[in-house]
């Protein structure tokens, strides 16, 4: 019977996390629209609820009820699987995130590594979507996305090696504990810059939103999608933003560790830092223009790659000589 009980508990936990994350992600879209609107001296959504607070729910309902169009020339099976392939990895990652020291779905001692691995699968869905749509905009978007995400995954992976070397562990909890004195962002500023840029590219955010550049590709890989399937891509994108923000906070900003004397519970610190991180993501979207494709690759391979390698080398050297 023990197994059955455990299974039920696990399922409940999964359901809770899924529900909360979906809701939070839905409100991220609201937040994004609001913040960008205010940056651009507009008001943003105002009609549904107080200051448009119910807007995400209305949007959700709309997308849910909308007709689900599958293009005639599309590869039906892949077309249907693709959005799921995008969404599932984005949510699976949450299974190893420690929301607090007691609430988590599972603990793996390779924590951060697992996150990298699973999120690297998201690109499959995007490429499948682009191919299955049988439209040139979609395919171009998908190809761009694949090249971009595969390249920047490398910088993302290498940029976290510096902090990991300092922490001496892959376990998220231990990494946070290692920053009780100084946040790693002060030891590893280079790594953080590279990580942040790579995270922008990995989540296909401005200024690296070439896969869905609306001025060139309509909407890139998800041009042909509508209804819930479209919503899946959206959910996945914002879920990924949450994940990379979480990783950034954990690796560079001391996770749930507070600042000095201010007496706030760890969880609040965590949410505050996460919110700040996400705000920067949105802020950048409102500020920066899009990169060109060759600029993207040049930035990655000629600038970030040597930088992050030098960072690893320096970290190792310093650790070997002084610690």
């Amino acid at each position, binding site marked *: 019977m023990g197994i059955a009980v455990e299974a039920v508990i696990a399922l409940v936990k999964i359901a809770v996390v899924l529900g909360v994350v979906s809701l939070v992600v839905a409100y991220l879209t609201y937040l994004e629209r609001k913040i960008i609107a205010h940056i651009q001296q507009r008001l943003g959504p105002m009609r549904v609820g107080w200051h448009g607070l119910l807007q995400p729910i209305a949007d959700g309902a709309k997308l849910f009820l909308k007709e689900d169009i599958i293009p005639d020339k599309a590869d039906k099976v892949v077309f249907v699987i693709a959005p799921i392939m995008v969404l599932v990895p984005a949510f699976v990652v949450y299974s190893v995130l420690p929301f607090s020291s007691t609430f988590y779905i599972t603990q793996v*001692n*390779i924590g951060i*590594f*697992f996150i990298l*691995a699973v999120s690297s699968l998201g*690109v499959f869905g995007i490429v499948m979507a682009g191919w299955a749509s049988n439209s040139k905009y979609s395919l171009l978007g998908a190809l761009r996305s694949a090249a971009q995400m595969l390249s920047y995954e490398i910088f993302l992976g290498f940029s976290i090696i510096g902090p990991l070397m300092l922490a001496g562990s892959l376990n998220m909890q231990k990494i946070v504990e290692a920053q009780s004195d100084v946040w790693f962002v002060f030891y590893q500023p280079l790594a953080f810059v590279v990580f942040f840029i790579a995270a922008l590219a990995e989540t296909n955010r401005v200024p690296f939103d070439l896969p869905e550049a609306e001025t060139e590709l309509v909407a890139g890989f998800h041009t042909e999608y509508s209804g819930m399937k479209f919503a899946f891509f959206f959910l996945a994108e914002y879920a990924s933003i949450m994940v990379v923000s979480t990783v950034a906070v954990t690796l560079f900003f001391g996770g749930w560790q507070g600042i000095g004397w201010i007496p706030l519970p760890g969880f609040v610190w965590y949410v505050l830092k996460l919110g700040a991180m996400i705000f920067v993501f949105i802020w950048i979207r409102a500020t920066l223009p899009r990169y060109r494709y060759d600029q993207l690759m040049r930035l990655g391979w000629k600038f970030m790659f040597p930088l992050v390698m030098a960072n690893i080398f320096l970290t190792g050297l310093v650790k070997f000589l002084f610690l």
Partner: protein
Amino acid sequence: MAGQLFFYFLALLTVAGAVAVVALPNPLYSVLSLVATFLGLAGLYLSLNAQFVAVVQVIVYAGAIMMLFLFVVMLINLGREERQALRLPVQKLAGTIIGLGVFAGLVNLYATTPLLTGAKGLFPAARLAEVGSVQAVGRLLVTQYVLPFQAMAVLLFVGIVGAVVLARRRAR
């Protein structure tokens, strides 16, 4: 019990994926099935406490290499007609027979030969859980296997240089 269920599920995923790779007519479906196989393998590694291998399996094979396959399949994008010509019935039959033969041989091998690796090797699952998979691999990489590790770096570098040499426009 739960572990066994887990194993059978993953084994089924792995084998079914592998069968689908060869059985499905559309190369794209084959690639996706291979991804499923790799994910199943990664799960099997996880259940053996070999987390590092599992993650590498996902990042390198499922993530990077299959992406490359997908690229090739998508860009070539064989139409139905071309695929007809690629039926190759004789080769298919021969492949099936040889494949079954190899399979029988392996089963026989496994039944008759006392293999000295795996459970009898240096790192059975229990010991791996003790020392940690990443730690074990990392330590070995910088001590006993430091030379192959560095040599692999040279190998990868040669691969990159070679790819750039072959791919770049004929300048100069």
